[in-house]
Protein backbone atom coordinates (compact mmCIF):
# COMPACT_ATOMS: atom_id res chain seq x y z
CA UNK A 1 0.00 0.00 0.00
CA UNK A 2 2.65 2.49 1.06
CA UNK A 3 4.76 1.74 -2.03
CA UNK A 4 1.92 2.53 -4.43
CA UNK A 5 1.29 5.76 -2.55
CA UNK A 6 4.96 6.64 -3.02
CA UNK A 7 4.72 6.07 -6.75
CA UNK A 8 1.60 8.21 -6.95
CA UNK A 9 3.32 11.03 -5.08
CA UNK A 10 6.33 10.88 -7.39
CA UNK A 11 4.03 11.02 -10.42
CA UNK A 12 2.26 14.06 -8.95
CA UNK A 13 5.55 15.88 -8.41
CA UNK A 14 6.76 15.15 -11.93
CA UNK A 15 3.44 16.24 -13.44
CA UNK A 16 3.44 19.40 -11.31
CA UNK A 17 6.99 20.34 -12.30
CA UNK A 18 6.21 19.84 -15.97
CA UNK A 19 3.06 21.96 -15.62
CA UNK A 20 4.86 24.71 -13.73
CA UNK A 21 7.49 24.77 -16.45
CA UNK A 22 5.13 24.57 -19.46
CA UNK A 23 2.26 26.82 -18.42
CA UNK A 24 4.17 30.12 -18.83
CA UNK A 25 4.51 29.24 -22.54
CA UNK A 26 0.73 29.43 -22.86
CA UNK A 27 -0.37 32.06 -20.36
CA UNK A 28 1.52 35.08 -19.04
CA UNK A 29 3.08 34.49 -15.63
CA UNK A 30 1.27 37.54 -14.27
CA UNK A 31 -2.10 35.86 -14.90
CA UNK A 32 -0.80 32.44 -13.91
CA UNK A 33 0.32 33.70 -10.54
CA UNK A 34 -3.17 34.76 -9.56
CA UNK A 35 -4.64 31.49 -10.90
CA UNK A 36 -2.23 29.56 -8.69
CA UNK A 37 -3.16 31.74 -5.70
CA UNK A 38 -6.88 31.16 -6.32
CA UNK A 39 -6.11 27.45 -6.58
CA UNK A 40 -4.59 27.54 -3.12
CA UNK A 41 -7.56 29.50 -1.77
CA UNK A 42 -9.98 26.96 -3.26
CA UNK A 43 -7.92 24.09 -1.81
CA UNK A 44 -8.33 25.62 1.66
CA UNK A 45 -12.11 25.43 1.37
CA UNK A 46 -11.89 22.08 -0.42
CA UNK A 47 -10.08 20.70 2.62
CA UNK A 48 -12.54 21.80 5.29
CA UNK A 49 -15.70 21.38 3.21
CA UNK A 50 -14.84 18.42 1.00
CA UNK A 51 -13.12 16.38 3.69
CA UNK A 52 -14.33 17.86 6.96
CA UNK A 53 -17.92 18.62 5.97
CA UNK A 54 -17.67 22.20 7.22
CA UNK A 55 -19.37 24.50 4.70
CA UNK A 56 -17.84 27.88 5.35
CA UNK A 57 -19.43 30.82 3.53
CA UNK A 58 -16.68 33.09 4.72
CA UNK A 59 -13.45 31.62 3.47
CA UNK A 60 -12.81 35.04 1.91
CA UNK A 61 -12.61 36.46 5.45
CA UNK A 62 -9.45 34.44 6.12
CA UNK A 63 -8.09 35.27 2.66
CA UNK A 64 -8.60 38.98 3.27
CA UNK A 65 -7.31 38.74 6.79
CA UNK A 66 -4.13 37.11 5.50
CA UNK A 67 -3.68 39.82 2.89
CA UNK A 68 -4.29 42.68 5.35
CA UNK A 69 -2.09 41.09 8.01
CA UNK A 70 0.71 40.86 5.49
CA UNK A 71 0.28 44.44 4.28
CA UNK A 72 0.08 45.95 7.76
CA UNK A 73 3.00 43.90 9.08
CA UNK A 74 5.13 44.58 6.00
CA UNK A 75 4.70 48.35 6.41
CA UNK A 76 5.71 48.13 10.04
CA UNK A 77 8.55 45.63 9.68
CA UNK A 78 10.00 46.65 6.34
CA UNK A 79 10.73 43.14 5.12
CA UNK A 80 8.56 40.16 4.18
CA UNK A 81 9.53 37.05 6.14
CA UNK A 82 7.84 37.83 9.45
CA UNK A 83 4.73 39.29 7.74
CA UNK A 84 4.35 36.09 5.71
CA UNK A 85 4.45 34.01 8.89
CA UNK A 86 1.98 36.34 10.61
CA UNK A 87 -0.33 36.19 7.59
CA UNK A 88 -0.63 32.44 8.16
CA UNK A 89 -0.99 32.53 11.94
CA UNK A 90 -3.36 35.46 12.40
CA UNK A 91 -6.17 33.98 10.25
CA UNK A 92 -5.55 30.56 11.83
CA UNK A 93 -5.89 32.00 15.32
CA UNK A 94 -8.98 33.98 14.33
CA UNK A 95 -10.52 30.83 12.82
CA UNK A 96 -9.65 28.81 15.90
CA UNK A 97 -11.54 31.29 18.09
CA UNK A 98 -14.47 31.56 15.71
CA UNK A 99 -14.53 27.80 15.17
CA UNK A 100 -14.39 27.03 18.88
CA UNK A 101 -17.34 29.36 19.41
CA UNK A 102 -19.36 27.67 16.67
CA UNK A 103 -18.44 24.04 17.21
CA UNK A 104 -18.53 24.08 21.01
CA UNK A 105 -21.83 25.92 20.69
CA UNK A 106 -23.09 22.92 18.70
CA UNK A 107 -24.16 24.99 15.74
CA UNK A 108 -25.50 23.00 12.82
CA UNK A 109 -24.75 23.53 9.15
CA UNK A 110 -27.14 26.34 8.34
CA UNK A 111 -26.19 28.50 11.32
CA UNK A 112 -22.55 27.84 10.62
CA UNK A 113 -23.05 29.19 7.12
CA UNK A 114 -24.89 32.25 8.42
CA UNK A 115 -22.25 33.06 11.03
CA UNK A 116 -19.29 32.72 8.68
CA UNK A 117 -21.18 34.85 6.16
CA UNK A 118 -21.92 37.54 8.72
CA UNK A 119 -18.33 37.58 9.97
CA UNK A 120 -17.18 38.23 6.41
CA UNK A 121 -19.71 41.07 6.13
CA UNK A 122 -18.60 42.59 9.41
CA UNK A 123 -14.96 42.56 8.33
CA UNK A 124 -15.92 44.04 4.96
CA UNK A 125 -17.98 46.83 6.52
CA UNK A 126 -15.33 47.54 9.12
CA UNK A 127 -12.38 47.70 6.76
CA UNK A 128 -14.44 49.67 4.27
CA UNK A 129 -15.19 52.37 6.83
CA UNK A 130 -11.69 52.65 8.27
CA UNK A 131 -10.63 55.56 6.04
CA UNK A 132 -10.08 58.07 8.84
CA UNK A 133 -6.61 58.87 10.20
CA UNK A 134 -7.53 57.31 13.56
CA UNK A 135 -7.48 53.80 12.04
CA UNK A 136 -3.78 53.13 12.30
CA UNK A 137 -1.89 49.99 13.27
CA UNK A 138 1.71 50.96 13.96
CA UNK A 139 2.71 52.95 10.90
CA UNK A 140 0.08 51.43 8.65
CA UNK A 141 -3.14 53.26 7.88
CA UNK A 142 -6.05 50.95 7.10
CA UNK A 143 -7.18 53.30 4.36
CA UNK A 144 -10.85 52.32 4.20
CA UNK A 145 -12.21 51.66 0.72
CA UNK A 146 -8.93 52.82 -0.83
CA UNK A 147 -7.13 49.87 0.70
CA UNK A 148 -3.45 49.78 1.61
CA UNK A 149 -0.96 50.36 -1.21
CA UNK A 150 2.78 50.69 -1.12
CA UNK A 151 3.84 48.01 1.33
CA UNK A 152 7.08 46.08 1.16
CA UNK A 153 6.56 43.10 -1.18
CA UNK A 154 8.09 39.65 -1.00
CA UNK A 155 11.87 39.52 -0.69
CA UNK A 156 14.44 36.77 -0.31
CA UNK A 157 14.47 35.96 3.43
CA UNK A 158 17.15 38.00 5.20
CA UNK A 159 17.77 40.28 2.19
CA UNK A 160 15.10 43.01 2.25
CA UNK A 161 16.40 44.60 -0.95
CA UNK A 162 16.20 41.45 -3.09
CA UNK A 163 12.57 41.53 -4.23
CA UNK A 164 10.80 38.48 -5.63
CA UNK A 165 8.46 39.62 -8.37
CA UNK A 166 7.30 38.87 -11.90
CA UNK A 167 8.34 35.39 -13.07
CA UNK A 168 10.06 34.63 -9.78
CA UNK A 169 6.87 35.33 -7.83
CA UNK A 170 5.01 32.91 -10.10
CA UNK A 171 7.49 30.13 -9.34
CA UNK A 172 7.35 30.87 -5.60
CA UNK A 173 3.53 30.73 -5.65
CA UNK A 174 3.48 27.54 -7.72
CA UNK A 175 5.95 25.78 -5.42
CA UNK A 176 3.98 27.03 -2.40
CA UNK A 177 0.81 25.53 -3.89
CA UNK A 178 2.62 22.24 -4.48
CA UNK A 179 3.86 22.27 -0.88
CA UNK A 180 0.35 23.01 0.44
CA UNK A 181 -1.04 20.25 -1.77
CA UNK A 182 1.35 17.74 -0.23
CA UNK A 183 0.66 19.06 3.23
CA UNK A 184 -3.05 18.45 2.64
CA UNK A 185 -2.29 15.00 1.18
CA UNK A 186 -0.22 14.09 4.21
CA UNK A 187 -2.89 15.42 6.55
CA UNK A 188 -5.62 13.37 4.87
CA UNK A 189 -3.58 10.17 5.14
CA UNK A 190 -2.84 10.74 8.81
CA UNK A 191 -5.18 9.49 11.50
CA UNK A 192 -6.41 13.06 12.02
CA UNK A 193 -7.46 13.35 8.39
CA UNK A 194 -9.10 9.94 8.27
CA UNK A 195 -11.10 10.74 11.38
CA UNK A 196 -12.02 14.13 9.89
CA UNK A 197 -13.54 12.27 6.95
CA UNK A 198 -15.40 10.11 9.47
CA UNK A 199 -16.80 13.28 11.03
CA UNK A 200 -17.98 14.40 7.61
CA UNK A 201 -19.72 11.07 7.15
CA UNK A 202 -21.32 10.74 10.56
CA UNK A 203 -20.61 13.10 13.41
CA UNK A 204 -22.66 11.21 15.98
CA UNK A 205 -20.87 7.94 15.30
CA UNK A 206 -17.44 9.50 15.60
CA UNK A 207 -18.35 11.05 18.94
CA UNK A 208 -19.81 7.72 20.10
CA UNK A 209 -16.42 6.20 19.30
CA UNK A 210 -14.95 8.56 21.87
CA UNK A 211 -13.50 11.31 19.68
CA UNK A 212 -13.99 14.95 20.61
CA UNK A 213 -15.63 16.14 17.40
CA UNK A 214 -15.73 19.78 18.49
CA UNK A 215 -11.97 20.05 19.02
CA UNK A 216 -11.17 18.23 15.80
CA UNK A 217 -13.45 20.43 13.70
CA UNK A 218 -11.96 23.55 15.28
CA UNK A 219 -8.44 22.44 14.42
CA UNK A 220 -9.36 21.54 10.85
CA UNK A 221 -11.15 24.88 10.46
CA UNK A 222 -8.01 26.69 11.64
CA UNK A 223 -5.79 24.73 9.23
CA UNK A 224 -8.10 25.72 6.36
CA UNK A 225 -7.88 29.36 7.46
CA UNK A 226 -4.08 29.18 7.63
CA UNK A 227 -3.95 28.03 4.00
CA UNK A 228 -6.42 30.75 2.98
CA UNK A 229 -4.27 33.27 4.86
CA UNK A 230 -1.15 32.18 2.99
CA UNK A 231 -3.04 32.55 -0.29
CA UNK A 232 -4.13 36.03 0.85
CA UNK A 233 -0.57 37.10 1.60
CA UNK A 234 0.62 35.89 -1.80
CA UNK A 235 -2.31 37.73 -3.37
CA UNK A 236 -1.25 40.92 -1.62
CA UNK A 237 2.23 40.49 -3.10
CA UNK A 238 0.81 39.88 -6.53
CA UNK A 239 -1.56 42.85 -6.50
CA UNK A 240 0.77 45.12 -4.47
CA UNK A 241 -2.36 46.56 -2.89
CA UNK A 242 -5.02 45.18 -0.55
CA UNK A 243 -8.59 46.45 -0.69
CA UNK A 244 -11.79 45.67 1.23
CA UNK A 245 -13.01 43.86 -1.89
CA UNK A 246 -11.04 40.83 -0.64
CA UNK A 247 -13.67 40.38 2.07
CA UNK A 248 -16.60 40.73 -0.30
CA UNK A 249 -19.45 38.25 -0.52
CA UNK A 250 -18.78 37.86 -4.22
CA UNK A 251 -15.33 36.57 -3.41
CA UNK A 252 -16.72 34.13 -0.84
CA UNK A 253 -19.36 32.83 -3.22
CA UNK A 254 -16.78 32.39 -5.95
CA UNK A 255 -14.65 30.08 -3.77
CA UNK A 256 -17.67 27.87 -3.16
CA UNK A 257 -18.43 27.76 -6.90
CA UNK A 258 -14.82 26.79 -7.67
CA UNK A 259 -15.11 23.85 -5.28
CA UNK A 260 -18.46 22.68 -6.66
CA UNK A 261 -17.35 22.90 -10.29
CA UNK A 262 -13.94 21.33 -9.67
CA UNK A 263 -15.24 18.54 -7.46
CA UNK A 264 -15.68 18.27 -3.73
CA UNK A 265 -13.93 15.53 -1.81
CA UNK A 266 -10.88 15.71 -4.07
CA UNK A 267 -7.68 17.68 -3.64
CA UNK A 268 -7.18 18.47 -7.29
CA UNK A 269 -10.79 19.47 -8.02
CA UNK A 270 -10.91 22.83 -6.20
CA UNK A 271 -7.55 23.84 -7.69
CA UNK A 272 -8.68 23.04 -11.21
CA UNK A 273 -12.07 24.63 -10.64
CA UNK A 274 -10.48 27.82 -9.34
CA UNK A 275 -7.84 28.14 -12.02
CA UNK A 276 -10.26 27.20 -14.80
CA UNK A 277 -13.08 29.51 -13.79
CA UNK A 278 -10.77 32.39 -12.91
CA UNK A 279 -9.08 32.09 -16.31
CA UNK A 280 -12.46 31.94 -18.01
CA UNK A 281 -13.47 35.09 -16.14
CA UNK A 282 -10.25 36.71 -17.28
CA UNK A 283 -10.99 35.84 -20.91
CA UNK A 284 -14.60 36.94 -20.65
CA UNK A 285 -13.48 40.18 -19.07
CA UNK A 286 -11.73 41.07 -22.32
CA UNK A 287 -15.00 41.30 -24.23
CA UNK A 288 -18.04 43.44 -23.52
CA UNK A 289 -20.73 41.50 -25.40
CA UNK A 290 -22.01 39.43 -22.50
CA UNK A 291 -21.84 40.14 -18.80
CA UNK A 292 -19.42 37.59 -17.38
CA UNK A 293 -21.24 37.08 -14.07
CA UNK A 294 -24.17 35.84 -16.15
CA UNK A 295 -21.97 33.20 -17.76
CA UNK A 296 -20.51 32.23 -14.38
CA UNK A 297 -24.05 31.75 -13.09
CA UNK A 298 -25.01 29.62 -16.08
CA UNK A 299 -21.91 27.45 -15.61
CA UNK A 300 -22.76 26.86 -11.96
CA UNK A 301 -26.36 25.96 -12.76
CA UNK A 302 -25.28 23.58 -15.53
CA UNK A 303 -22.79 21.87 -13.25
CA UNK A 304 -25.24 21.46 -10.40
CA UNK A 305 -27.80 19.99 -12.81
CA UNK A 306 -25.64 17.77 -14.99
CA UNK A 307 -22.34 17.22 -13.21
CA UNK A 308 -23.15 17.63 -9.52
CA UNK A 309 -19.98 15.87 -8.42
CA UNK A 310 -17.75 18.23 -10.36
CA UNK A 311 -15.11 17.86 -13.05
CA UNK A 312 -12.45 15.79 -11.34
CA UNK A 313 -14.68 12.98 -9.97
CA UNK A 314 -16.51 12.80 -13.33
CA UNK A 315 -13.26 12.52 -15.29
CA UNK A 316 -11.93 9.97 -12.79
CA UNK A 317 -14.98 7.71 -13.11
CA UNK A 318 -14.91 8.07 -16.91
CA UNK A 319 -11.26 7.07 -16.85
CA UNK A 320 -11.97 4.08 -14.63
CA UNK A 321 -14.89 2.98 -16.82
CA UNK A 322 -12.87 3.06 -20.03
CA UNK A 323 -9.37 2.00 -18.96
CA UNK A 324 -9.34 0.77 -15.39
CA UNK A 325 -9.44 -2.92 -14.53
CA UNK A 326 -11.55 -4.14 -17.39
CA UNK A 327 -10.78 -7.74 -16.45
CA UNK A 328 -11.82 -7.14 -12.85
CA UNK A 329 -15.23 -5.96 -13.94
CA UNK A 330 -15.68 -8.90 -16.27
CA UNK A 331 -14.93 -11.43 -13.57
CA UNK A 332 -17.27 -9.59 -11.22
CA UNK A 333 -20.00 -9.85 -13.81
CA UNK A 334 -19.27 -13.54 -14.28
CA UNK A 335 -19.49 -14.04 -10.54
CA UNK A 336 -22.75 -12.16 -10.50
CA UNK A 337 -24.10 -14.35 -13.32
CA UNK A 338 -23.10 -17.45 -11.43
CA UNK A 339 -24.95 -16.22 -8.38
CA UNK A 340 -28.03 -15.52 -10.49
CA UNK A 341 -27.74 -19.01 -11.97
CA UNK A 342 -27.49 -20.68 -8.61
CA UNK A 343 -30.39 -18.59 -7.33
CA UNK A 344 -32.51 -19.68 -10.27
CA UNK A 345 -31.36 -23.29 -10.02
Amino acid sequence: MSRSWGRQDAATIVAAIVLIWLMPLLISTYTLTVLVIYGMLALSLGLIWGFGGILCFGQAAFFGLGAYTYAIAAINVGESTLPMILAVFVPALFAALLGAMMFYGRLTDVYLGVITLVVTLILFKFVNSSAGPQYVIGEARLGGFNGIPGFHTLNIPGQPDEYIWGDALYYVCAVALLAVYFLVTWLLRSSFGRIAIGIRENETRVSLMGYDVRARKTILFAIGAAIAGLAGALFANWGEIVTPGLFSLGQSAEIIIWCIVGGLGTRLGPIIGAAGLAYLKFLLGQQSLIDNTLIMGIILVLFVLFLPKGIVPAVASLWKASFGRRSGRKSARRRHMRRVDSANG
Partner: protein
Amino acid sequence: MAETVLETTGLTMRFGGVVATDNVNFSLKARELRCLIGPNGAGKSTFFKCITGLLTPSEGQVFMRNQETTGWHPHEVASLGVGIKTQVPNVMDGLTVVENIWMAARRFMPSKEASDKAQDVIERLALGSIAKAELGRLAHGERQRVELGLVVAADPWLVLLDEPAAGMTAGDVDRMSAIIDEMTRTAAVVIVEHDMQFIRSIASTVTVFHQGAILMEDHVDKVMADPIVRNVYLGKKA
Protein backbone atom coordinates in the same frame (compact mmCIF):
# COMPACT_ATOMS: atom_id res chain seq x y z
CA MET B 1 -19.63 -10.33 44.37
CA ALA B 2 -18.86 -8.70 41.04
CA GLU B 3 -18.19 -4.99 40.81
CA THR B 4 -21.06 -2.65 39.88
CA VAL B 5 -20.18 -1.05 36.53
CA LEU B 6 -23.28 1.00 35.88
CA GLU B 7 -25.60 2.62 38.37
CA THR B 8 -28.27 5.28 38.18
CA THR B 9 -29.93 6.93 41.17
CA GLY B 10 -33.20 8.79 40.88
CA LEU B 11 -32.72 9.31 37.16
CA THR B 12 -35.52 11.56 35.87
CA MET B 13 -35.95 13.12 32.47
CA ARG B 14 -38.69 15.60 31.69
CA PHE B 15 -39.61 17.00 28.31
CA GLY B 16 -41.78 19.98 29.21
CA GLY B 17 -44.67 18.46 31.13
CA VAL B 18 -43.95 14.89 30.04
CA VAL B 19 -41.97 12.74 32.43
CA ALA B 20 -40.21 10.27 30.14
CA THR B 21 -38.23 8.47 32.82
CA ASP B 22 -39.27 8.80 36.41
CA ASN B 23 -36.90 8.26 39.32
CA VAL B 24 -35.13 5.22 37.89
CA ASN B 25 -32.69 3.36 40.14
CA PHE B 26 -30.78 0.85 38.09
CA SER B 27 -27.60 -1.10 38.65
CA LEU B 28 -25.58 -3.51 36.61
CA LYS B 29 -22.73 -5.83 37.59
CA ALA B 30 -19.62 -6.57 35.57
CA ARG B 31 -20.18 -9.05 32.71
CA GLU B 32 -23.92 -9.04 33.33
CA LEU B 33 -26.34 -9.19 30.40
CA ARG B 34 -29.48 -7.13 30.88
CA CYS B 35 -32.38 -6.46 28.57
CA LEU B 36 -34.63 -3.43 28.90
CA ILE B 37 -38.14 -4.00 27.60
CA GLY B 38 -41.43 -2.18 27.75
CA PRO B 39 -44.20 -0.92 25.49
CA ASN B 40 -43.67 2.10 23.21
CA GLY B 41 -43.17 5.28 25.18
CA ALA B 42 -42.17 3.44 28.35
CA GLY B 43 -38.96 5.47 28.58
CA LYS B 44 -36.40 2.82 27.59
CA SER B 45 -34.74 4.88 24.88
CA THR B 46 -34.78 8.05 26.95
CA PHE B 47 -33.12 6.15 29.78
CA PHE B 48 -30.58 4.82 27.29
CA LYS B 49 -29.85 8.31 25.97
CA CYS B 50 -29.39 9.66 29.49
CA ILE B 51 -26.74 7.03 30.20
CA THR B 52 -24.86 7.53 26.95
CA GLY B 53 -24.79 11.30 27.26
CA LEU B 54 -26.98 11.96 24.24
CA LEU B 55 -29.40 13.58 26.71
CA THR B 56 -28.68 15.29 30.01
CA PRO B 57 -31.08 14.07 32.70
CA SER B 58 -33.26 16.60 34.51
CA GLU B 59 -32.52 14.98 37.86
CA GLY B 60 -30.54 12.11 39.30
CA GLN B 61 -27.06 10.72 38.73
CA VAL B 62 -25.31 8.19 36.53
CA PHE B 63 -22.23 6.34 37.78
CA MET B 64 -19.89 4.17 35.73
CA ARG B 65 -17.33 2.16 37.67
CA ASN B 66 -18.11 4.42 40.63
CA GLN B 67 -17.32 7.57 38.67
CA GLU B 68 -20.11 10.07 38.20
CA THR B 69 -20.79 10.63 34.49
CA THR B 70 -24.00 12.65 34.71
CA GLY B 71 -24.12 15.26 31.96
CA TRP B 72 -20.96 14.04 30.25
CA HIS B 73 -20.71 14.30 26.47
CA PRO B 74 -21.06 11.06 24.49
CA HIS B 75 -17.39 11.16 23.48
CA GLU B 76 -16.34 11.39 27.11
CA VAL B 77 -18.54 8.45 28.06
CA ALA B 78 -17.20 6.45 25.10
CA SER B 79 -13.61 7.31 26.06
CA LEU B 80 -14.09 5.49 29.35
CA GLY B 81 -14.43 2.25 27.41
CA VAL B 82 -18.16 2.20 26.85
CA GLY B 83 -19.39 0.86 23.51
CA ILE B 84 -22.60 2.40 22.24
CA LYS B 85 -24.96 1.46 19.42
CA THR B 86 -27.87 3.77 18.77
CA GLN B 87 -31.35 2.85 17.62
CA VAL B 88 -30.94 4.29 14.12
CA PRO B 89 -27.85 2.69 12.57
CA ASN B 90 -25.03 5.20 12.91
CA VAL B 91 -22.26 4.25 10.54
CA MET B 92 -20.08 6.17 8.13
CA ASP B 93 -21.78 5.50 4.81
CA GLY B 94 -19.14 6.85 2.46
CA LEU B 95 -16.34 4.75 3.94
CA THR B 96 -15.45 1.07 3.70
CA VAL B 97 -16.09 -1.47 6.44
CA VAL B 98 -12.35 -1.68 7.19
CA GLU B 99 -12.05 2.11 7.50
CA ASN B 100 -15.08 2.24 9.79
CA ILE B 101 -13.71 -0.37 12.15
CA TRP B 102 -10.18 1.03 11.98
CA MET B 103 -11.53 4.35 13.20
CA ALA B 104 -13.25 2.76 16.18
CA ALA B 105 -10.04 0.95 17.17
CA ARG B 106 -7.80 3.97 16.51
CA ARG B 107 -9.29 5.81 19.48
CA PHE B 108 -7.57 3.44 21.88
CA MET B 109 -4.41 2.41 20.03
CA PRO B 110 -1.87 3.63 17.41
CA SER B 111 -2.76 3.48 13.73
CA LYS B 112 -0.82 0.30 12.84
CA GLU B 113 -2.28 -1.71 15.71
CA ALA B 114 -5.72 -0.40 14.86
CA SER B 115 -5.36 -1.83 11.34
CA ASP B 116 -4.51 -5.25 12.80
CA LYS B 117 -7.38 -4.94 15.22
CA ALA B 118 -9.76 -4.12 12.35
CA GLN B 119 -8.70 -7.27 10.49
CA ASP B 120 -9.19 -9.26 13.67
CA VAL B 121 -12.71 -7.89 14.22
CA ILE B 122 -13.61 -8.48 10.57
CA GLU B 123 -12.62 -12.13 10.93
CA ARG B 124 -14.47 -12.57 14.20
CA LEU B 125 -17.70 -11.08 12.85
CA ALA B 126 -17.36 -12.85 9.48
CA LEU B 127 -17.32 -9.56 7.56
CA GLY B 128 -14.48 -10.63 5.24
CA SER B 129 -16.56 -10.78 2.08
CA ILE B 130 -17.76 -7.17 2.46
CA ALA B 131 -14.64 -5.69 4.10
CA LYS B 132 -13.81 -3.43 1.16
CA ALA B 133 -17.41 -2.39 0.45
CA GLU B 134 -18.78 1.04 1.29
CA LEU B 135 -21.28 0.99 4.13
CA GLY B 136 -23.88 2.89 2.10
CA ARG B 137 -24.18 -0.04 -0.31
CA LEU B 138 -24.74 -2.72 2.31
CA ALA B 139 -27.98 -4.33 3.44
CA HIS B 140 -29.56 -3.34 6.74
CA GLY B 141 -28.50 -6.51 8.56
CA GLU B 142 -24.91 -6.12 7.40
CA ARG B 143 -24.85 -2.51 8.52
CA GLN B 144 -26.12 -3.52 11.95
CA ARG B 145 -23.37 -6.14 12.13
CA VAL B 146 -20.71 -3.62 11.13
CA GLU B 147 -21.96 -1.26 13.81
CA LEU B 148 -21.54 -4.04 16.36
CA GLY B 149 -18.04 -4.43 14.94
CA LEU B 150 -17.42 -0.75 15.71
CA VAL B 151 -18.44 -1.42 19.30
CA VAL B 152 -16.33 -4.59 19.59
CA ALA B 153 -13.23 -2.96 18.09
CA ALA B 154 -12.88 -0.63 21.07
CA ASP B 155 -12.69 -3.53 23.58
CA PRO B 156 -15.37 -2.01 25.83
CA TRP B 157 -16.13 -3.14 29.39
CA LEU B 158 -19.68 -1.83 29.12
CA VAL B 159 -21.78 -2.20 26.00
CA LEU B 160 -25.05 -0.33 25.45
CA LEU B 161 -27.15 -1.49 22.50
CA ASP B 162 -30.40 0.14 21.44
CA GLU B 163 -32.55 -2.31 19.42
CA PRO B 164 -29.72 -4.26 17.79
CA ALA B 165 -32.11 -6.80 16.26
CA ALA B 166 -34.54 -4.30 14.74
CA GLY B 167 -35.45 -5.08 11.15
CA MET B 168 -33.18 -8.11 10.87
CA THR B 169 -33.80 -11.54 9.36
CA ALA B 170 -33.81 -14.69 11.49
CA GLY B 171 -30.32 -15.64 10.30
CA ASP B 172 -29.00 -12.20 11.14
CA VAL B 173 -30.58 -12.36 14.59
CA ASP B 174 -28.91 -15.71 15.33
CA ARG B 175 -25.55 -14.32 14.35
CA MET B 176 -26.24 -11.25 16.46
CA SER B 177 -26.97 -13.37 19.56
CA ALA B 178 -23.70 -15.22 19.06
CA ILE B 179 -21.78 -11.94 18.91
CA ILE B 180 -23.52 -10.63 22.02
CA ASP B 181 -22.79 -13.88 23.80
CA GLU B 182 -19.12 -13.42 23.02
CA MET B 183 -19.24 -9.81 24.24
CA THR B 184 -20.47 -10.85 27.69
CA ARG B 185 -17.21 -12.69 28.30
CA THR B 186 -15.43 -9.37 28.72
CA ALA B 187 -18.15 -6.77 29.13
CA ALA B 188 -21.42 -5.97 30.81
CA VAL B 189 -24.13 -5.58 28.18
CA VAL B 190 -27.37 -3.58 28.25
CA ILE B 191 -29.82 -4.18 25.42
CA VAL B 192 -32.96 -2.19 24.74
CA GLU B 193 -35.18 -4.49 22.74
CA HIS B 194 -38.70 -5.14 21.48
CA ASP B 195 -38.17 -8.55 19.99
CA MET B 196 -39.20 -11.10 22.67
CA GLN B 197 -37.97 -14.00 20.52
CA PHE B 198 -34.52 -12.46 20.51
CA ILE B 199 -34.57 -11.81 24.26
CA ARG B 200 -35.54 -15.42 24.95
CA SER B 201 -32.72 -16.62 22.72
CA ILE B 202 -30.10 -14.74 24.74
CA ALA B 203 -31.98 -15.58 27.97
CA SER B 204 -31.07 -12.96 30.50
CA THR B 205 -32.32 -10.83 33.31
CA VAL B 206 -34.94 -8.40 32.09
CA THR B 207 -35.89 -4.97 33.40
CA VAL B 208 -39.41 -3.96 32.43
CA PHE B 209 -40.15 -0.27 31.95
CA HIS B 210 -43.67 1.08 32.16
CA GLN B 211 -44.68 4.74 32.07
CA GLY B 212 -41.14 5.90 32.72
CA ALA B 213 -40.52 3.75 35.78
CA ILE B 214 -39.19 0.26 36.43
CA LEU B 215 -42.09 -2.17 36.74
CA MET B 216 -40.15 -5.31 37.59
CA GLU B 217 -36.78 -6.94 37.24
CA ASP B 218 -36.36 -10.69 36.89
CA HIS B 219 -35.36 -13.55 34.63
CA VAL B 220 -36.96 -13.48 31.22
CA ASP B 221 -39.15 -16.57 31.78
CA LYS B 222 -40.60 -15.24 35.00
CA VAL B 223 -41.19 -11.84 33.48
CA MET B 224 -43.01 -13.38 30.54
CA ALA B 225 -45.20 -15.43 32.84
CA ASP B 226 -46.08 -12.45 34.99
CA PRO B 227 -49.72 -11.36 34.57
CA ILE B 228 -49.00 -7.66 35.17
CA VAL B 229 -46.34 -7.56 32.44
CA ARG B 230 -48.63 -9.38 30.05
CA ASN B 231 -51.35 -6.84 30.71
CA VAL B 232 -49.00 -3.92 30.21
CA TYR B 233 -47.94 -5.31 26.87
CA LEU B 234 -51.44 -6.20 25.76
CA GLY B 235 -52.84 -2.96 27.12
CA LYS B 236 -55.35 -4.53 29.53
CA LYS B 237 -56.14 -3.13 32.95
CA ALA B 238 -54.29 -5.04 35.65
